[in-house]
């Protein structure tokens, strides 16, 4: 199942989708699958699995530390497919957030095939703009996968249109000019950016970077189609391996996003 169906289902219930980011392979391969499943059980609609990469240009220190740990424990591409399979079995849509070199290296077509076979929904590509994405777009279309590109507060109108036209699933709106990391308040520019991106043709726009509480999620759900949360969940996972804190936080955010807060 793709992201669009999940978002539409959440909206039909009067809220927005809750999209949870967790790094694949952190704290280890199986524990990352277990954490993602716990988050789905706590109400997440879409799981965004981060593929650990040596040069994570857009990640803040928390995610960098987590993905670095995954790599130092020997995380490999083949481990990703097993995690995707387990998480997809819950019925959640599974998107992989990845810097593009590992996919380029694996081969766009081969990756799309193996990922689809594992039950994956699509890719979020923080360092791949549509201008450079032809080989990925072709492979994704061949295997019926989501293609999720980003817009930023600095994106000019013609770029909002290019990204909106190139996405399938949703458009990822980076709410602030900065790297990932929980912030106490979400930039006002997020609201404008969502409206501008819609005005340039996007059907579904989800907001990420900096969200950490159910209250913030509820606020974003008022104007966006989905709320993306990463660093705050990873912190909860890091501090409490029993997953109790992760479940509690995910439930709180899910309630906020779904309009049940």
């Amino acid at each position, binding site marked *: 199942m793709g992201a669009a169906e999940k978002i539409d289902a959440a909206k039909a219930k009067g809220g927005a989708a809750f999209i949870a980011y967790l790094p694949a392979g952190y704290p280890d391969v199986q524990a990352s699958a277990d954490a993602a499943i716990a988050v789905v059980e706590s109400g997440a609609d879409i799981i965004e699995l981060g593929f650990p990469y*040596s*040069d994570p*240009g857009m990640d803040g220190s928390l995610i960098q530390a987590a993905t670095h740990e995954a790599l130092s424990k020997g995380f490999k591409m083949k481990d990703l497919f097993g995690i995707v399979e387990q998480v997809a079995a819950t019925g959640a849509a599974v998107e992989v957030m990845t810097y593009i070199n590992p996919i380029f290296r694996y081969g766009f077509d081969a990756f799309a095939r193996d990922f689809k076979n594992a039950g994956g929904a699509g890719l979020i590509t923080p360092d791949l*703009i549509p201008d450079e994405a032809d080989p990925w777009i072709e492979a994704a279309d061949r295997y019926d996968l989501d293609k999720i*590109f*980003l817009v930023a507060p*600095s994106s000019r109108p013609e770029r909002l249109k290019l990204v909106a036209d190139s996405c399938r699933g949703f458009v990822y709106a*980076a709410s602030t000019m*900065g790297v990932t990391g929980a912030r106490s308040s979400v930039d006002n520019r997020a609201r404008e950016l969502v409206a501008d991106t819609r005005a340039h043709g996007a059907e579904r726009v989800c907001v990420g970077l900096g969200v950490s509480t159910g209250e913030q999620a509820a606020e974003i759900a008022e104007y966006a189609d989905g709320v993306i949360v990463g660093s705050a969940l990873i912190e909860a996972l890091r501090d409490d391996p029993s997953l109790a804190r992760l479940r509690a936080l995910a439930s709180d955010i899910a309630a906020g996003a779904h309009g049940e807060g």
Partner: protein
Amino acid sequence: MNLTGPYFGEFGGRYIPEALIAALDDLSDGWEKLKIDPAFKEELAELNRTYTGRPSIITEVPRFSQHCGGARVILKREDLNHTGSHKINNVLGQALLTRSLGKTRVIAETGAGQHGVATATAAALLGLECTIYMGAADIRRQALNVARMRLLGAEVVSVNQGSNTLKDAINEAFREWVATVDTTNYIFGTAAGPHPFPALVRDLQRIIGDEAREQVLALTGSLPDWVLACVGGGSNAIGMFTAFLDDEDVRLVGLEAGGEGIESGRHAAPISVGDVGILHGAKTYLLQDEDGQTLESHSISAGLDYPGVGPEHAHLSAIGRVEYRPVTDAEAMEAFALLSRTEGIIPAIESAHALAGAMKIGTANPDATILVNLSGRGDKDVETAAAWFGLDGSATREVF
């Protein structure tokens, strides 16, 4: 408006977060306008004359050439530039570009510290705020340059990520740029990274080859047979090579850091042995594992210790116009010592890689004329060299 950056064959591009695209577009557009603006050209030329000390001279080195099979060896003396290397050529241009874009602060990455020193210098000269990102390992091995940057008024940020070297400093600088792009320009130090940096840096460094080509013609009456330069990211090499690309009889050779030897796996020679991949915004040759994770590079020279290379070099290699060969740490240090002793010129260890190339190529081609880009001077490397040669700071001889 330039949506798709220029490619060099299949290499190059802009594999970079959308958040930076507007800034990169502004840089491209700003540079296209500025580089044809007569007032800018005059200002840069004036700075080159009165601040950097251009044109840099060429020096024929007959005693060193005895170690190069007797081939005629001519050095382009970028080591005589203010701040000690070719990096200042690029930085002055990008600093003027920063001012014309209305930005008040610059950031930069640095490996050996030469680009950081050059950037801190230009920032002081033009009254810009300046922050330099540097890997923790490089901060240790290039302490002298760290002190220079701080004396020049720059903030130096130690990067403790990954291999703690240049690659990680670049990651951190890009991350910072996203958050501060309204006021801040990123002055990139080499001919790598996303468009427009490879072309921008080449445009600013081509003065090296343009001058050298004329100077060698005036000295010898003909073009050199070989033109050599070391390749880290590739800025001094592309600056030199650009002037000779159309001269079919001139053989161009880039010398990569072979570290402890290609077979050891501890090197920084992505063209010689890397694969095509994407790093720091460009498709190019890289050192990477089967999953596309960047491998750590190694070189005795901090300025060559980088797992990627500029995309134009990847292209020039792919089409066979430029040859790229590895030189080991040991070969470079031998050339370093020889140039010092035979000619009284202590080169940067980076540049010593190109000199080691001249020793090999000259030995095989004793009748050749070889032009070598001496990209920098060795002041910053004295400690490394002293450790390598076991010179502990004591005198050669004592008298009572």
